[in-house]
């Protein structure tokens, strides 16, 4: 048993959620369905932590690699492996899944079995995407993540769920078709192989790189989302049930950033450099545009959704700085954003469970009725705009340092985005937490239960600990990032490459 676990660690990690789905079929009651799902997600978290403990941070390449022939005619493999970058994102996925189950413990009371199965399905698929070393595997499971999200939105969502679901699917499909085009292009140009590591070692001509990058850019950009492809996100977020929003914001958006890191930078370094100015300006645009729009929202979920767009701008800003600080900051920012935004959606969901209203104007004075909730919401809000002492600050700082090597103007503009973030978050807090209750319903709300606290407290601890001692996570990815940056720098002109 132990050798199976040791030799096939990643396969075990992938298998656990799917085994959970199989077990769910046997569940007799809704209560059992919830318990089985919780058990499965915790088991996956356990395996992920095992992987973390046996992970060697000093090594820059892939670890725990497993390879098996899958469709030899097309040279498709089942190949998985972990490096520092994917380790972090796998950990994030495994961490948020049990929290999703806990968050939907009471709020989901119809078709519980199906709901839990979808959470497990999305978890399993995400883990495969983050560990895949084969582009075909990557693409297939990328597609799979979309399906459970669609059903979550359409079946358990809010009043506008059908339109939001269709919008989500149409955007995602467009994105993934272009992604498919890009991947097929790589396959055909790169000597008929889907192997990411093999493709990273090849050099493609400038033209090929340009077109493939363009296709991938749209595929990843829609997922991330970058402006102007973001308009599915606020709708999907505001209509999705709490766990759906958490998965969407916490993990799914990271697929885009991960794609850029895993595929664009190492395989298409020259095109990455060509597109970098566009990417950076789009990132800065997203930071400011998302923040301005968040300031105009009165719907809590839409507010957090637009703040997501703004914060994901930092991720691309860091990635396309092509230096260690920027890339590490971007990955850290992905992790932090996953946790903070997930927590914010959880908190908003907890309010929604109580009153079925997402409007800022229906609350007020929550510090009195729900002191524990008020503390939690305030903490995650200030974390979200990057208060020092929270992990988000470190991520944003590193991204800004990375970006400062090429242009100070962008740094300054991105910092304005942080001020705007402080403005919309504090304004939201002022109207929701402080002051007096505006409606009678808001004046008599029960405070958070132990279960609800259990979803938020671990996230708060992680945000704080990483904020004070970021080395915990950064040591994990240090070697991999150095490796990645070296690969990406091939595309840089000589005078820029000497900057570091």
């Amino acid at each position: 048993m132990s050798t199976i676990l040791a030799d096939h660690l990643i396969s075990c990690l992938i298998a656990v959620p799917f085994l959970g789905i199989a077990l769910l079929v046997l569940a007799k009651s809704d209560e059992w369905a919830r318990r089985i799902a919780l058990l499965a997600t915790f088991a996956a978290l356990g395996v992920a932590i095992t992987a973390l403990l046996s992970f060697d941070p000093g090594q820059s390449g892939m670890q725990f690699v497993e390879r098996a022939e899958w469709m030899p005619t097309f040279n498709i493999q089942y190949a998985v492996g972990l490096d520092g970058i994917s380790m972090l994102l796998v950990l994030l996925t495994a961490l948020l899944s049990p929290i999703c189950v806990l968050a939907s413990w009471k709020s989901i009371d119809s078709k519980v079995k199906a709901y839990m199965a979808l959470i497990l399905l999305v978890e399993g698929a995400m883990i495969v995407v983050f560990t895949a070393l084969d582009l075909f595997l990557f693409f297939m499971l990328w597609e799979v993540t979309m399906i459970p999200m669609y059903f979550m939105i359409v079946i358990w969502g809010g009043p506008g769920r059908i339109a939001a679901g269709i919008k989500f699917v149409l955007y995602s499909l467009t994105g993934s078709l272009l992604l498919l085009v890009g991947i097929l292009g790589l396959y055909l140009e790169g000597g008929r192989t889907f192997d990411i590591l093999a493709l990273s070692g090849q050099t493609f001509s400038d033209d090929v790189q340009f077109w493939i990058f363009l296709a991938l850019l749209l595929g990843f950009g829609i997922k991330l989302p970058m402006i102007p492809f973001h308009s599915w996100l606020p709708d999907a977020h505001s209509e999705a049930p709490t766990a759906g929003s958490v998965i969407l914001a916490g993990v799914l958006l990271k697929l885009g950033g991960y794609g850029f890191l895993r595929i664009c930078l190492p395989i298409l370094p020259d095109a990455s450099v060509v597109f970098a100015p566009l990417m950076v300006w789009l990132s800065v645009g997203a930071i400011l545009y998302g923040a301005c729009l968040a300031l105009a929202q009165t719907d809590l979920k839409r507010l957090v959704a637009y703040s997501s767009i703004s914060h994901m701008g930092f991720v691309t800003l860091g990635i396309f700085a092509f230096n260690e600080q920027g890339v590490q900051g971007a990955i850290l920012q992905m992790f932090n954003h996953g946790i903070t935004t997930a927590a914010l959606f959880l908190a908003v969901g907890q309010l929604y469970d109580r009153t079925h209203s997402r409007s800022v104007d229906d609350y007020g004075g929550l510090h009195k009725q729900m002191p524990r909730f008020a503390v939690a919401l305030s903490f995650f809000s200030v974390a979200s705009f990057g208060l020092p002492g929270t992990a988000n600050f470190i991520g944003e700082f590193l991204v800004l340092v990375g970006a400062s090597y090429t242009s100070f103007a962008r740094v300054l503009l991105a910092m304005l985005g942080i001020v705007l973030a402080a403005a919309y978050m504090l304004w939201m807090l002022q109207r929701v937490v402080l002051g007096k209750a505006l409606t009678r319903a808001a004046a008599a709300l029960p405070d958070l239960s132990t279960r609800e606290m259990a979803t938020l407290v671990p996230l708060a601890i992680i945000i704080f600990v990483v904020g004070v001692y970021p080395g915990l996570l950064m040591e994990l990815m240090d070697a991999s990032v150095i490796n990645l940056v070296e690969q990406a720098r091939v595309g840089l002109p000589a005078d820029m490459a000497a900057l570091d």
Partner: protein
Amino acid sequence: MTVFALIPLLPLLGFFVIAFGGNRLGEVSHRIGIPAVGLSAALSFVAFYYVAVAGPISIPLYTLIDVGAVSVAVDLYIDQLTVLLLLLVTVGSFVVHVYSSSYMIGDPRYRRFFAVIGLFTFAMVLLVMSNNLLVTYMCWEVMGICSYLLISHWAHRESAAKAATKAFLVNAVADVGLGFGVIFTLATYGTLNIQEILAAVPSMAGSDINLLGWLGFEWLIERNTLITFCLLSGALGKSAQFPLHIWLPFAMEAPTPISALIHAATMVNAGPFLLARMSPLVLSAPSAMAVIAIVGMTTAVYGGLVALTQSDIKKSLAYSTISHIGFMIFACGVGAFVAAIFHLLAHGFLKGFLFLSTGNALESASAHGHAKSSGRVSGSLAAGALLLALIPAVVIFSGPYEQMWTAHQTPAAQVAFFFLALATVFLTGMYIFRAVSSLFGHQVGNSGVLPNLFAPAYLAGVGVLVAAVGCLLVFVWTWFAAFLGPALGAQPPLAAGPAFSPWLVAALLAAVAGWGFARQFQPSPTFAGAWTKMAYVALLNRLYVDEIFDAFVVGPFIRFCDWLQGTIETLGLDNLIQTTARVVMVLSNWLWTVLEVRGLDRGLGGGADSSVALSRWLWRVVDLRGDAMVEGLGRASDETGEMLQRIEPRTLQHHLLVVVFWLMLAIALSYWLIL
């Protein structure tokens, strides 16, 4: 040495224990907070002695960030400057802790209060001890959020909530500059270690950066100058300089002990401290220094004038704080860092004392209906006020620092600075005594309730006192300058001139005159002259700075965001997407009509017709006896058709067509890419 690391850590520990200690701590939270801060105050005294004897100490703690060439270490550095600030912060915080433990009794958020002031103390202590600009910046921000939490202490009050948000956001705007400065410093010096930066300052002299390069223009500015401007930007916010001072008067929504903590002992001092800490850098940027001096002087005069007109004593004290801090910034701007720090310390202790006495007086006023405070309290208030009024005079005009007027070579500027400084001293004397007297006699214009502070005998006594205190201060001041000098590196050597100068006497006289004038001249809305009345009303409304910000910055920006949401996002982007979807729908509808209805359907219809004819023929020809069987079949196929109809063939077809459309596009793209 490492024991001094406990100075910041003890209040932090106190914060954790109180914050996570559960509700059972309740109203005994101060039993954790007071010893924690008391111990760090005691340690600060030890550190003071140590530094006085053995010079600066450096304590490395741990590495926060280590990525590539960027490394940020949390190091403590204790030199003369740090140690003096430490004394002010820890002792001030200790007094506030003790005072609050009785002042806040009965408050439902007693525990939260003590937790936050613990964290606040930690942030300020670490700020003055940090040897890394990033850590300084972090503490800077943490203090901001603590002040947010403290101002919103009585969160049920709408005004407190607004004041808290305003305070944080105004600071956040200013901190963009400081944060940018940190990143720019890192890019310039390659390190954020403050001592290393200061040592490298001369090597960066003359190194320029093009500010408008990204627009294709050229506007060169020296790197050191830019960094100094960034530091000033931070100071504008935290130290409430004009025009970003607007948060401070509203911060009076906090409980009174907080006013003592924020406005006297800690937060507002961060600006002058930062400038003094980075003094070699500041001195290398003369043009930035001129701006700093102008900002400081504007603030000092503005604060003094507005303080004169405010009827609320807490508001009046707030503006006096703004004015005093402006004075310190001004001193930094002319290179008189030692004077700024002396002023800072003296102001910190005295203003804290004034706020706490005010708290007492207001408490007793609300308890007894009228402020009949004991003579002891009013006496102590008067003494504090007197000292406060004299400080600017002494620090700016005492002998050794007369030379600082030569920091700026233009004689006109010297004269202007000189007279403005004198005017500020005069104003300080005036508003301080007005504030004190308004507390004890609510209608000062009416001689009936005038406090006896203004009796002629007292005036004479005060004259003597002024001279005595002036002597004392000057004596302390000379020692102080010798002590602090080494910490500020590139200070010009102190001239061994006489401590007393004509200017000092003039300044002391100005202070006394201000006080005396306050008795004669009471600003009130009943002014006869149109001009004086207009000036009075304008000052009463704080020159409408808040309103200007609301009308020209905040309001338009919110409208801009709403416009973005309404026009760009909904009408523009969303519409675009929906139009695309509609076009695809129309296209598929057209395809459907053309292909299905006109083509396939007709074909099929023809086929069906002929098959019907065929079957009729068959029926007729082959077997009439099979009638019953055929009928049965017909019924079955009818049912299937109905079932299929229920699935809405149209939408199904649309979906298929949309998919086909995309597939064709994708195939065309890939075909084109690959060939």
